[in-house]
């Protein structure tokens, strides 16, 4: 294994939605500073929006809604557990993000008068702004990264954040094509590696048939954890209502403003709102277990032109292969409902709330380490939230490094990591990574998929702790396979965190996301708090309660309870 050394002022790990914006904003804040994006794929087509996005889900546009209304909406849909100041940033800065994206050529839907054509998908306010022409979003961002002269290194995967004297001083990883060991020194590090989308095993059994881009394997959750940062709300899983087997969005956010809705097999509504929340997912779970399933996204009652318009959006954006999936089965929105199912579990703040703890400045609890996007703990943050926190991380990192020098990494730490990374390559006749990953994720399904049961989760936890033994016999025959092996390490860390956090919170909250059969009720007296976890000095995973920050927008969470059941 040869070693490559790199040096930059600001290191951005992950060049997706949050990462490209973080790099652009860091360069805008200080054009003379050096900014490097490290990306394990290619930023032109990487991350959650590799094939674009069909709409913005959290657009707070003046004249339509206010940041205060938005904070209120998210506070209620996330059962009160959030840092409102952080959510407020998405409400306050999202409009500037939309305007800046527009100046770069991104198109948002407008009405005949030229006003933003906002749609209601949330329970109360209008925050969904369609982008029927959003397919080229990632190429537009890539162009801006180049224009702003941020550097990009594609096909290098980070495996650990380097920490010295209590602050983040760079990262290590390897080139997924040459296998070179890579050391990057930086004055600040911004983690933007997306969700842990490869935690549970999809019902299809295909490891990569996930909702999230399967490259997003919880890299940042694991790297932040090993850097000593706090993570939060990990027990608040991501579980989505998805097209059965295809495992992608159907997508009610696009189709419901046109009149589509979620129905049971009899064609009846059982939820009044298609916005994804834990409580809505619990209603879906109950319906599927009531004998009235399967459930479907129903569009058959819409006129033909409307359906054609929905098809043109869904089949060109985000997950454009949806069209050929339906075609292959001879299904058509005009005559058939879209059969829906409950997804396997994942971790993702963009849709639920689990992530690396960040405040309203995108700072983690480790100085010099920032996080943004699906892996940072701002609930229901979606794409605009990723842009907003990328922007905050980029700008604040540039302020932070003022007057700071690079620190030399500890050679012993580098050697230990080099050995850890080399191990699967030195064991080419060991167990293939595909089998090691399959079994791990199957165990996640067996023991962690809600409803949660303490005895089951304890067995799961023992399995995940013991799984280090399986990681040790895992094999890779080339640098590409090594990438998948090191992702399995990330997935194992996330599985252990998910089990421990779920066992720690002895109540039920967030609907299906944390539904415990042994503690089926919400208990605000004891559990109106975050459950945070971190690695302590002796290398053990410790969990503790962290109080919810005082609200900046008044919400009486005892009285205002999220409920979209149709009874």
């Amino acid at each position, binding site marked *: 294994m040869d070693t490559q050394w790199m040096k930059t002022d600001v290191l951005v790990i992950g060049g997706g939605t949050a990462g490209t914006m973080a790099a652009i904003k860091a360069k805008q804040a200080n054009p003379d500073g050096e900014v490097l994006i490290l990306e394990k794929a*290619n930023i*032109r087509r990487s991350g959650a929006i*590799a*094939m674009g996005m069909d709409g913005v889900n959290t657009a707070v546009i003046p004249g339509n809604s206010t940041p205060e209304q938005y904070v209120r909406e998210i506070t209620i849909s996330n059962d009160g557990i959030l840092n409102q100041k952080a959510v407020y940033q998405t409400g306050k800065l999202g409009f500037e993000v939309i305007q800046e994206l527009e100046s770069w050529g991104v198109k948002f839907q407008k009405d005949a008068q030229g006003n933003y054509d906002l749609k209601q998908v949330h329970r109360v306010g209008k925050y969904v702004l369609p982008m029927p022409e959003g397919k080229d979003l990632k190429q537009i961002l890539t162009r801006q990264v180049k224009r702003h002269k941020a550097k990009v290194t594609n096909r290098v995967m980070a495996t650990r954040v380097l920490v010295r004297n209590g602050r983040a001083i760079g990262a290590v990883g390897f080139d997924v094509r040459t296998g070179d060991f890579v050391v990057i020194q930086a004055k600040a590090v911004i983690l933007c590696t997306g969700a842990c989308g490869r935690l549970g095993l999809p019902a299809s059994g*295909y490891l*990569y048939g996930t909702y999230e881009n399967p490259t997003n394997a919880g890299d940042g959750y694991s790297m932040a954890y090993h850097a000593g940062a706090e993570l939060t709300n990990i027990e608040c899983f991501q579980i989505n209502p998805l097209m059965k087997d295809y*495992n992608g969005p159907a997508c009610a956010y696009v189709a419901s403003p046109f009149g589509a809705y979620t129905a049971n097999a009899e064609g009846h509504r059982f939820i009044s709102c298609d916005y994804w929340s834990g409580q809505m997912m619990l209603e879906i779970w109950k319906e599927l277990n009531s004998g009235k399933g399967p459930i479907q996204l129903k569009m058959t009652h819409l006129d033909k032109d409307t359906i054609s318009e929905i098809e043109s959006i869904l089949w060109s954006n985000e997950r454009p292969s949806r069209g050929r*999936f339906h075609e292959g089965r001879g299904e058509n929105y005009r005559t058939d409902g879209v059969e829906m199912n409950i997804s396997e579990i994942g971790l993702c703040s963009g849709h639920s709330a689990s992530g690396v703890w960040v405040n309203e400045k995108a700072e983690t609890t480790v100085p010099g380490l920032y996080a943004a996007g699906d892996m940072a703990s701002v609930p229901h943050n979606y794409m605009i939230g990723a842009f907003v926190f990328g922007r905050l991380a980029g700008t604040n990192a540039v302020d932070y490094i003022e007057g700071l020098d690079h620190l030399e990494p500890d050679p012993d730490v580098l050697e230990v990591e080099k050995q850890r990374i080399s191990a699967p390559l030195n064991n080419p006749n060991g167990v293939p990574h595909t089998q090691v990953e399959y079994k791990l994720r199957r165990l996640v399904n067996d023991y962690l998929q809600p409803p949660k049961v303490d005895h089951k989760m304890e067995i799961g936890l023992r399995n995940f702790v013991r799984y280090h033994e399986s990681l040790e016999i895992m094999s890779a025959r080339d640098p590409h396979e090594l990438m998948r092996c090191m992702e399995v390490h990330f997935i194992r860390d996330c599985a252990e965190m998910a089990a421990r956090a779920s066992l720690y919170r002895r109540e039920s909250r967030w609907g299906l996301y944390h539904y415990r059969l042994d503690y089926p009720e919400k208990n605000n007296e004891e559990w109106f708090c975050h459950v945070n976890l971190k690695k302590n000095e002796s290398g053990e995973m410790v969990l503790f309660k962290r109080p919810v920050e005082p609200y900046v927008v008044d919400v009486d969470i005892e009285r205002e309870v999220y409920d979209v059941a149709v009874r």
Partner: protein
Amino acid sequence: MALTTQRVDVPVIVDESKCLEKCTACIEVCPLDVLVKNPETGKAYMKYDECWFCLPCEKECPTNAITVQIPFLLR
């Protein structure tokens, strides 16, 4: 460890008559990095069965040589 090779049906199909030997467009954009060139023929093929059926390879191929199917297990 005793090992065997298992055959799998892969989702990305390359029409070799259209694939350009000097072009690496599909290989560069694949998020999962599953495509490589066959060193003997210079044609691209799917080496690793790790596909998100996301379509950048198909969209960015200058000669429309690529067809992405939904993986068999999901189809």
